[in-house]
């Protein structure tokens, strides 16, 4: 990694738009940065850090690397390398997790529209009604607020319901129950009644689904006290998060993405449960921390390929836990790279990125060498026209440009 970068710097093989203007960089650097870098030669973002940091950060970096695979090594069984595992699609992984939990605990049940014999709009509950009966996989009439309320009442009485919103956007109708009761009743009852529900469903911008079916509910729900929010992005973490959410005694909202249901991956045969509050290190790196989640992870990884070719070394973290943020993993990354780019699908105003920016600024301000850059969707309803829709969502070229800008 180091050799590539230094080579690039020496031969100035970079394109003009991305040329690193060292003088400009020195002058524009912050006070704290120049204090730290005073003893070192002209900056290559990352290069110096690696050398300078090798004594300090390197140790931690090693720890970080271990941490990077920790999410997989956390599993009770050995790493995936030893067993072949099995391949499946993301929605099948969700179903597998759901089925395993329903098998394990008879209190687990599913409530939603068309989840029973129809098998769910995205086939996540396919076959479950045949196996567990109509009562455990319950089809409901169209009244989101009420069947969410039903799930909450059932949870208070001892069941562990999974409430499916056919599309996350429909859960806006359930906002009253989710915020006023789901999040609050454990607290206001003095801990007497617990609400171990999982509220899940597909959200995000799909392929021309129209504005009402392209909502990003995570930004609306993030303020509700008492709930946890997680977003899955791969079959592996989908199954693990589903199981963790069901086992959790807190109300958890699991955000899936409409376009990710057919992702294929090989996952372990043995049982595993992921930690709800942990972020996932997708690609360790040195130059910039890119924080993302759900579908944007794939846009970021695509951009990362381009960036690597251009000589950058981005660290990509899938934050997974949207509430609360895994500031430990994020913080360690920022302390290493000193630059943050957030790539999200939420709208600019009041999105997850906005909260994350605030949280990072508050906690890691001293470690930042540049302002946090947050790439989000515009504050517009999602248009139906394919070309327009494409440009309301952050695209890989934008991510590449942002990293280049950040690392100048």
């Amino acid at each position: 990694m180091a050799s590539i970068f230094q080579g690039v710097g020496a031969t100035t093989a970079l394109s003009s738009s991305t040329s690193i203007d060292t003088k400009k960089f020195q002058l524009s650097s912050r006070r704290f940065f120049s204090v730290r870098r005073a003893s070192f030669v002209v900056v290559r973002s990352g290069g110096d850090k690696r050398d300078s940091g090798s004594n300090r950060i390197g140790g931690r970096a090693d720890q970080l690397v271990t941490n990077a695979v920790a999410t997989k090594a956390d599993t009770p069984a050995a790493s995936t390398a030893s067993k072949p595992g099995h391949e499946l699609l993301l929605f099948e992984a969700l179903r597998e997790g759901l089925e395993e939990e329903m098998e394990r605990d008879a209190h687990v049940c599913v409530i939603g529209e068309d989840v029973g014999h129809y098998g769910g709009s995205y086939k996540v509950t396919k076959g479950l009604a045949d196996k567990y009966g109509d009562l455990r996989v319950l089809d409901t009439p169209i009244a989101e607020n009420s069947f969410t309320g039903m799930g909450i009442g059932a949870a208070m009485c001892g069941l562990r319901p999974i409430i499916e919103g056919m599309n996350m956007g429909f859960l806006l109708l359930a906002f009253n129950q989710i915020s006023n009761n789901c999040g609050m009743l454990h607290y206001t009852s003095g801990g007497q009644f617990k609400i171990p529900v999982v509220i899940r469903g597909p959200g995000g911008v799909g392929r021309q689904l129209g504005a009402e079916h392209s909502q990003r509910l995570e930004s609306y729900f993030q303020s509700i006290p008492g709930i946890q929010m997680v977003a899955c992005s791969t079959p592996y973490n989908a199954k693990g998060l589903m199981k963790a959410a069901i086992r959790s005694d807190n109300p958890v909202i699991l955000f899936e993405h409409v376009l990710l249901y057919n992702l294929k991956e090989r996952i372990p045969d043995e049982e595993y449960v992921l930690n709800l509050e942990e972020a996932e290190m997708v690609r360790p790196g040195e130059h910039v921390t890119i924080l993302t989640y759900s579908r944007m992870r794939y846009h970021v990884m695509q951009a990362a390929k381009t960036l690597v070719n251009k000589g950058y070394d981005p660290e990509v973290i899938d934050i997974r836990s949207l509430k609360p943020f895994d500031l430990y993993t994020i913080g360690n990354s920022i302390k290493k790279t000193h630059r943050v780019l957030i790539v999200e699908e939420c709208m600019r105003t009041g999105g997850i990125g906005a909260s994350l920016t605030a949280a990072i600024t508050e906690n890691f301000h001293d470690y930042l060498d540049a302002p946090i850059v947050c790439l989000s969707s515009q504050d517009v309803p999602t248009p139906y026209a394919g070309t327009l829709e494409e440009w309301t969502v952050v695209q890989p070229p934008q991510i590449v440009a942002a990293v280049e800008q950040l690392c100048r």
Partner: protein
Amino acid sequence: MLRFINHTSSITNLQFPRHLLHTISSPPLPVSNYATSSSINLSNAFSRCFESVYGGRRLHTATSARNDVDQLSTETPLQQELDFPGGRVKFTAKPVFTSSSSEERTPCYRVLNDNGQPIVDGDSVKISKELAVKMYTNMVTLQVMDTIFYEAQRQGRISFYLTTIGEEAINIASAAALNDNDFVFPQYREPGVLLWRGFALQDFADQLFGNKNDNGKGRQMPIHYGSRKHNYVTVSSTVGTQIPQAVGAAYSLKMEKHDACTVTYFGDGGSSTGDFHAAMNFAAVMEVPVIFFCRNNGWAISTPINDQLRSDGIVVRGKAYGIPSIRVDGNDALAIYSAVHKARKMAIEEQTPVLIEALTYRAGHHSTSDDSTKYRPVDEIERWRGDQNPLNRFRKWIETKGWWSDEAESEHRSRIRKQLSQAIQAAERVEKPPISDIFSDVYDVPSKNLTEQETFLRRTIHKHAQDYPSNVPM
């Protein structure tokens, strides 16, 4: 032009002329007849079309149907009924609209008349002396409790209170007819159910003062009682949200095959919420053991019943959703007891929801934040506090049976008053819940950001100790 209701069935996929004539057949009601000669012909024509479809013969297209109309003779037999999704439906040739209301309102079940005398040929569950006396004494306790706590609020000792004056029979008699393991989802005007189940006066006082003995750890407003031990879910301020929750809880009882039901209370105002309608619908579809108990007390804060709804009260809505329903005299303790007793049996044995509408009157203000004399006449309030008072009627009945007396009454009242003032004084003196209770129970285990926030708060308090209230422990 008349508008017709289109049924969703395979028939509608066919190419029928646009004015598809469907009428809903119902018992004959005095409604103006819109039928004209042309429409009679039309309806006969369509019935013939249905006939041909039903018989599986070649389907008519739009044009051919119109040709049929022209060539029709006037007298063709009307097909009797058709098998639509949802069941067989009879046809009628007359475009008769069902009336907006029946000529007669749903009758109201009562056992005792205004003077507390049993109605002749009445049908009710017999209750023992112990039960009757227990019911009455609890009603008195509830009334005294309401009066004294209301006064406490007026004196500034508690911040808020909400009375149940006029609805004591509903509270106590319905609770008496339930089992202790029946889950209760209250609105907020049902503390009597808790009282019946054994919640002590001290417990009530502790919640009102929000001290550290409160079940809810001081987190909710006064009157937002809740007790897992008594199967009474914590009151949530939102109106009507408890109704679908009760259905969900009933669903869990059904799944686990418990010999219990759930009960949810709400007012006439609460029956207008979206949650009520969907919950009723769900409960009927899922066939779960839930009792929907509507306290129709005539007022939703300042909204009188006629501004709230235009149906025949709430009882008729049960039929709309396919739920057995009954209307009951809400100020007659025996009637409520019988109705709830029967409803519970029905709900559990037949696994069906049941709707009970109790007609009563909110004799007090909506809450301590309200002065109801601003929107209703004082003599109306006085009248309901007088003859229709549920306590008076029940008392007359138990006194005629020799189970109660004036001495017993005054003795009980003074005892309860004394207990209450002691409870209030004790509750006032108890410490408030500690600071850590701000942050606990948000999740099962406090998250990192909450722990940080608590540290920050404690630091702030430490720095400005003089601005911090002395009766809140750290």
